[in-house]
Every structure is written in C-alpha cells, then in structure tokens.
C-alpha cells in the first residue's frame, strides 16, 4: 500500500484543458473520492494516475516514487472499470487470476490466491461459471476480485457502481466500504453520485471544469463548502443562496437580506462591498412568523421523515427541510429564520466562500484535528 501524491497535474487534449493544476494527497490506506459532474476531469485524473493517459504537466508520486511517465503495468495498481471489463472468453476463475498470470506466478499459487479472494468477496461458488451469465452485482465482485487479488499499491475505481440498479448500488456501497475497512488499501474512487461519495469517502475532492474546487472530509465539504459550486453540487436539495449587496464591517452581528435582518455570528473582519450570497442548507431553515424574511409556500415534497418546502420569496425560491408533521398549504405566507451558526458566505463574482469573515476557521481546524 502506498500514498498517492499528485502535484500540479495538468492534462490538455488539444485546446481543451481537461485537468488544470491539480494538487492533492491521498494518504496510505485512505478511501479517496473524486466527485464532480460528467466532463469535470475526474476520470482523466484517475486515468493519469493509472498510466492510461500521460499528463501534459505535473507529477504523480506513488509511495514516494515518481511514476508520472511510467507505463500502466509498471505502476503496480489495480483499476476497476465502470463496465467492469471482464474478459468474456474466460470464466470467473481465469478473470480473477489474470493479473497473477502476468507476474508468472505458479498455477498452484494462483489457484490458492484466487480462491482466497473469491471467499473474501463471497463469490467462491461462482469460480467456474462464465462471466457472461453473472448478475450485475456478481460481475462487480469479480471485477473487484481481479483488482484485489494482486495486492497492489492502490485501487483506482471509475464509477464502478454506475451501471447497477439503485437497490444493488446501496448494497455495494456498503460492501465496498466494508471491504475497504478490512483490507485498508489506498483507494481512489471516481463518481458523480454525491451519496456514494458521502457514504464511503474518508476524503473527497470536488471537481468542476478540470479544477479541484474543494478537498476535504465529507463533513467539511458539506458544512463548509469552499465555493458556490460545491454548495450547489452537494446536498439534495442544494444549498439556498440569498443574494445581497454591500460589504461587512467587523463587529456587526447582522446582514440585511431582502430588507430582513439576518443574524450572523460576529463578523470577524471587514469585507469590501461586493455582490455577495449568503448560503444556508434547507435543514437549517425554520419557520418563524416573527421573521421579516417572508414568502408564500409554492409547493412541498413529502419525504416521510421530513418534507421539502419551497417558499417563494422576493429573491426567488428558498427550499427548507422541515419535520414532516407540520401541516402546510400552498399559498400560505410564512416567515423564515436561518440558523446563524450554519451560514456560509460567498463572494458572488469569484464564487468562493469568504469563510474567515463569519467563522473562526482556525478554531474549527484545531477542534477537528484535536
């Protein structure tokens, strides 16, 4: 097992820049997820780590060795493809043993290793079956088996659950994470599905347009999005943005949005006037008739334990997640209060969070690494 260090990684296809200046470190034994919409460069990054694409610039270090320009087979990594890429002309046993065959391992040893691996994945009863007859989940397990049988330095997975149906996917998410807990292999996992990312990852990198927007734990990414893109991409429904103009002065404890005063934790520094946005997750909004921030209910989505209420305000629709018991009718006028501890502040022009203005980020970091 090994740590993966990506430095100033860049990839251009002609004029199109797929990945620009990526930097991140995947620590030894960590489950790292690259998350982003399609075309954001996450798969290209993964393929560069694998050696299937050569970078235009930058460096990739695997366990301290520079592998940037090495061939895929010289890197000692395993890759799980979205479409599994199981060899249709081989049975399950041969598929799993295929990487060991390349190393010239004696067939008796291959046999033992393949059987061990199959047992670990609970597919030992399928070993002599043809791969073409397997169900989606079992194909996935065979593909995983082919990856782990070799005990490589790290695992790279490219949307491996993308083709499974939802029910199976939840099961496999659980299985994958459990497998990871058992073998503790450095894993880079690419997906566009935030639920997969949130439930499996130790660390997430959110990518967009070839740029890593944010790198952090699922909690950091959800609670303290670094950019408006991340805030919008993560969370369902996404974060609400309340636009306002003007600057902030150090020491003030409120921001005026749509004529309503919104309480914030003490502003810690002056912010020059600009177009700003206040971000708030739906679950951090409560109904409060005394509030000046008002709107009419536009519609509700009943989800069983909670419900999503869309409220039409002067500044557009704000979605709130409230307990399912509350009875609401479309057209009702309601007031909204925002949980001041959970606000995020963004500068609209750059889309970046102005974190230091309302949060004691240094203290948060100390608390997290406590």
């Amino acid at each position, binding site marked *: 097992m090994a740590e993966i260090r990506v430095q100033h990684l860049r990839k251009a296809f002609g004029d199109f820049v797929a990945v620009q200046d990526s930097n991140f470190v995947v620590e030894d034994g960590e489950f790292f997820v690259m998350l982003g919409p399609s075309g954001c460069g996450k798969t290209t990054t993964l393929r560069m780590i*694998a050696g299937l694409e050569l970078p235009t610039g930058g460096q990739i270090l695997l366990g301290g060795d520079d592998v940037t320009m090495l061939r*895929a*087979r010289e890197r000692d990594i395993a890759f799980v493809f979205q479409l599994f890429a199981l*060899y249709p002309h081989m049975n399950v046993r041969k598929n799993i043993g295929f990487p060991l065959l*390349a190393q010239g391992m004696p067939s008796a040893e291959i046999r033992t290793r393949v059987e061990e691996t199959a047992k670990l994945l609970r597919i030992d009863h399928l070993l002599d079956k043809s791969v073409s007859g397997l169900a989606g989940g079992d194909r996935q397990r065979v593909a995983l088996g082919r990856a782990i049988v*070799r005990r490589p330095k790290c695992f790279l997975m490219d949307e491996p659950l993308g083709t499974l149906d939802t029910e199976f996917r939840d099961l496999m998410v659980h299985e994958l994470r459990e497998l990871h807990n058992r073998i503790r292999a450095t894993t880079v996992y690419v997906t566009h599905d935030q639920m997969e990312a949130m439930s499996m990852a130790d660390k997430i990198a959110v990518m967009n347009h070839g740029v890593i927007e944010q790198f952090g734990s699922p909690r950091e990414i959800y609670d303290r999005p670094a950019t408006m893109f991340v805030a919008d991409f993560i969370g369902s429904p996404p974060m609400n943005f309340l636009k306002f103009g003007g600057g902030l002065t150090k020491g003030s404890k409120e921001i005026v949005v749509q004529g309503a005063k919104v309480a914030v934790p003490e502003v810690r520094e002056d912010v020059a006037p600009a177009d700003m946005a206040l971000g708030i997750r739906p679950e951090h909004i409560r109904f409060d008739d005394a509030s000046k921030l008002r709107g009419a209910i536009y519609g509700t989505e009943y989800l069983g334990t909670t419900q999503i209420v869309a409220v039409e305000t002067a500044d557009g629709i704000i979605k709130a997640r409230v307990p399912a018991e509350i009875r609401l009718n479309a057209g009702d006028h309601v007031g909204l209060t925002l949980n001041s501890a959970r606000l995020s502040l963004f500068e609209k022009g750059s889309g970046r969070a102005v974190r230091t203005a309302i949060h004691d980020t240094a203290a948060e970091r100390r608390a997290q690494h406590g």
Partner: protein
Amino acid sequence: MSLTTAHSVVAPSANSKRIAGAIIIAYALISIVPLLWIFATSFKTPPDSIAYPPKIVFQPSIEGYCNLFTTRTRQTPEYINSLGPATGFCDETVRKRNMVIAGPSNFLPRFVNSLIIAFGSTFCAVFLGTLSAYGFSRFKVPLADDLLFFILSTRFMPPIAVAIPIYLMYRELGLSDTALGMILLYTAVNVSLAVWLLKGFIDEIPREYEEAAMIDGYTRLQAFWRTVLPQATTGIAATAIFCLIFAWNEYAFAALLTSGTAQTAPPFIPTIIGEGGQDWPAVAAGTTIFLVPILVFTILLRKQLLRGITFGAVRK
C-alpha cells in the same frame, strides 16, 4: 448482459410461412441444381455426359476422376492386350477406351498451388488487416481518415484493369509464375477489405479490456493477443472467408500471371477439356474437388460468419 432481445414482430401466419417456404425452396433449387449437375456429371462416363436428352439416371463411374488425375496415351488394342492384368479400376477403365495411363496429370500440383496461394494470401491479408485495423482503431494515427480512404481507394478500380502493368512488373521482378507473386498480389487486393471489415469489428470491442490487461501487468501486444484477438474471432473468421473466396476463385490474374509451376486450379481446370476430346466428366470432377475446400472452410466457420455478417444489427 443476460438480457434477451424481445422481438416485437408479430408471429408469421401459417399461410405466409408456407409462401416463404415455397420461395426458399424454389430459390434453393435454382442455386443448387447447377452444382448437383456438375456433381452428377463428374460421375458420368464421357458418352453419358453428352447424351441427348440428358440422362438423369445413369450408371455412376469414376472415369471422370481417373481422367482428371492422369494423363493417357492412345494405344493399339494389340499393345494393350500384350500388357499384364490391369492394376486397379482406373487402369481398367482407361484400357477399355484403348488408352493406357502415361502418368499423373498436373491437377494435383495445381490444386496444391491453389491451396498454398489462397490460404497463404488469406493469412497475410487477415494478419496485416488485423494489426492495421487495431492501430487505426486504438491510436491517434496522423491523417487516419485519409489513410483509410486511400486503403479503400485501392478497391475503386477493378483489379484486372491493372493487369498489364502488373504483368510487366512481375516479369521484371521475377515474380511471374511464382507462388510468392500470387500471394503478394491477392494479399494486396484483399488487405483493404480486411482493414475496413476488421476495423469495424475492433471498434466494437471496448478498449477497457486492453487497458485492464495493461494495468494487470501485460504489455500492449500481450493485451492485444489475450483480450482483443479472442473477442475479434468472429470478425476475423468472416474476413478470412471473404478473402479466401476471392483468392480461391480468382481467375483472370491467375490465367495471366501463372502458366507453369505456380498455376492455380481455376486456369487449369478449363485446360482439361482439351486433352482427348471434350472430357466433361473430368472437368466436372475437377470443379467438384475445387469446391470442397471452400465448402469445408465455410461450414467450419459458418457460425462466426453468420454472426459476422449480421454484426451491428443486434446489440449485445
């Protein structure tokens, strides 16, 4: 995927099935009767073969095959009677026509030439075609489209249009009447077809297979050999049959460029007719034997061929 394609086509009625059956039988008869006629003629005696009205029922004889494989000389009955007892059926049959067997004919070596040249050129065309198709399919080849068009353009002209220049070139290069020359020629004609057909097949094979193999520790060539080739067998078989059929049946170049040692069966078979009258059974026997290899090859590969020809029509 284990999904089976559901056919939404309405099941044909009994009546339309009957009509379809009748059409198929009629078509099969039209196609098969000439072949059956050749096959029957090859077992007729020369007089039976030119009898009018044609004989449908006749006493079968292998005289045609005897004549095909031998050369004979006419002798006086006295001389023939002075010989010892006939050694085998052919000897006996020939003697009845006042002839003796002088030696083997050229049919067998010509047939062997055909086998060597047709299979040799098919192998070369498919080998080169597979590799170039793989290259075009997987790598960024500069001017790939233009190159592919150029390869296709070699088929624009009927090959025979360049017969004279090729004849002259081959004479200069010493390739006239050599098996190598014919293999090169047929390979050149077939390779464009092979590249285009195989590129289609290889494009259909996801490149993840080789990528997986390369990550698993194989070189590109090993990955190609172990993962791409086994999945391209359908396409390779289909391509091989098309190439073989062309090379096996080719007459014009063979007639022009080969006359002796490298002569193939197609230009040889018609020459049988001149030896000792119009020997239709011998010609028919030669044709029948000539049909066998391609028939066997096609039957052996028919599963692949069928899947190959209909490829792309059904998604897996």
